[in-house]
């Protein structure tokens, strides 16, 4: 493909970079990313991936936009309240960059549908806000050997890691099973600083762009912890667990599990 005059301008700051160039930009345009959630993490991540010219973005979110989302979920506007998040996200992203095809999914992901939905995407970006989805996405990515960017946030703190199944630890190597209900504050109690998911989601998008380009160092085997309150970043090494139930030597999880939602309120 040849770049149009508009594309040369749009992507010029990428093309100038020796690590990207026209070839890297074409790679991005031919790539696909599946985003789990169009919320606090998915919105900033998707916004930058669309701006970067990632050619195809799948976005799954079963919820409608609510006023309480607008403090951090930057793809949605006041006029979108009551409208499905996946569609609101699509409209914002395609307005930003017509080179990007956005495929919205308005059903909740579950053990029945996830494999089929994500199997043709290059990379998965998890921006989900609950443990059942997080474990479902991790297990599906391990079974499909899909690179996965994990991000999560809580109040003033966030964490990011990049999971390359077979090469580095997965989410279950870190936390084998979901915490028991009651261990985690319920969704209503938690609260989050609005800018926090912006930082974490954009770090996830950064990891995904490098993965697609095949350049730079990734957070493989590393968990990046960010505290917005103290403004500290910390990196901790994480290792594969040979006894990991999904990616270990003798995996016991060979098919997907639907854990029960502990919090009935979906954001």
């Amino acid at each position, binding site marked *: 493909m040849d*770049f149009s005059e508009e594309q*040369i*301008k749009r992507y*010029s700051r990428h*093309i*100038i970079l*020796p690590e990207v*160039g*026209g*070839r890297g930009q074409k790679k991005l345009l031919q790539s696909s990313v599946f985003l789990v959630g169009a919320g606090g993490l998915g919105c900033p991540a998707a916004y930058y991936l669309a701006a970067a010219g990632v050619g195809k973005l799948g976005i799954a979110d079963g919820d409608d936009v609510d006023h309480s989302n607008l403090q951090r979920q930057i793809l949605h506007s006041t006029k979108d309240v009551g409208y499905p998040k996946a569609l609101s996200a699509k409209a914002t992203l395609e307005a930003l960059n017509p080179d990007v095809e956005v495929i919205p999914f308005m059903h909740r992901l579950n053990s029945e549908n996830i494999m089929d939905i994500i199997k043709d995407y290059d990379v998965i970006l998890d921006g989900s806000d609950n443990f059942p989805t997080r474990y479902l996405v991790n297990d599906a990515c391990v079974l499909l050997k899909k690179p996965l960017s994990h991000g999560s946030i809580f109040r003033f703190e966030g964490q990011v890691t990049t999971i390359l199944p077979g090469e580095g630890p997965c989410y279950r190597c870190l936390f084998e099973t979901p915490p028991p209900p009651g261990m985690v504050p319920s969704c209503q109690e938690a609260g989050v600083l609005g800018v926090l998911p912006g930082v974490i989601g954009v770090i996830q998008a950064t990891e995904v762009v490098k993965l697609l380009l095949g350049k730079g160092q990734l957070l493989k085997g590393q968990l990046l912890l960010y505290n917005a309150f103290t403004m500290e970043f910390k990196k901790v090494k994480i290792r594969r667990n040979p006894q990991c139930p999904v990616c270990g030597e003798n995996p016991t999880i060979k098919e997907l599990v639907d854990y029960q939602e502990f919090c009935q309120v979906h954001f």
Partner: protein
Amino acid sequence: MSSITKKAPPQADPSASGGLSPSKSINLKGEVCPYTFVKTKLALEEMSVGEVLEVIVDHEPAVENVPRSIQNEGQKVLAVEKLNDTGGTTTWRLVIKKEKD
């Protein structure tokens, strides 16, 4: 501008410099920075190592910027020549050899 070689006399034979005839030529008259460099880089990406690209520019800062940036990418600048003034606009000819893929 001291680093620029202005060896070509007016009416120079464009194929004379560098001793190599370009396998591709792009006319970037009317283009400004950074697009002069962006388009030069994109043209080189489509070429093979050893091939020579001729670039015509009329944006004066590009005469320094394009050779500097393209050298940073590992390519070789064979010549930078001022061409004849036509109707008040000055144009330059840059000759670049692709050294690195």
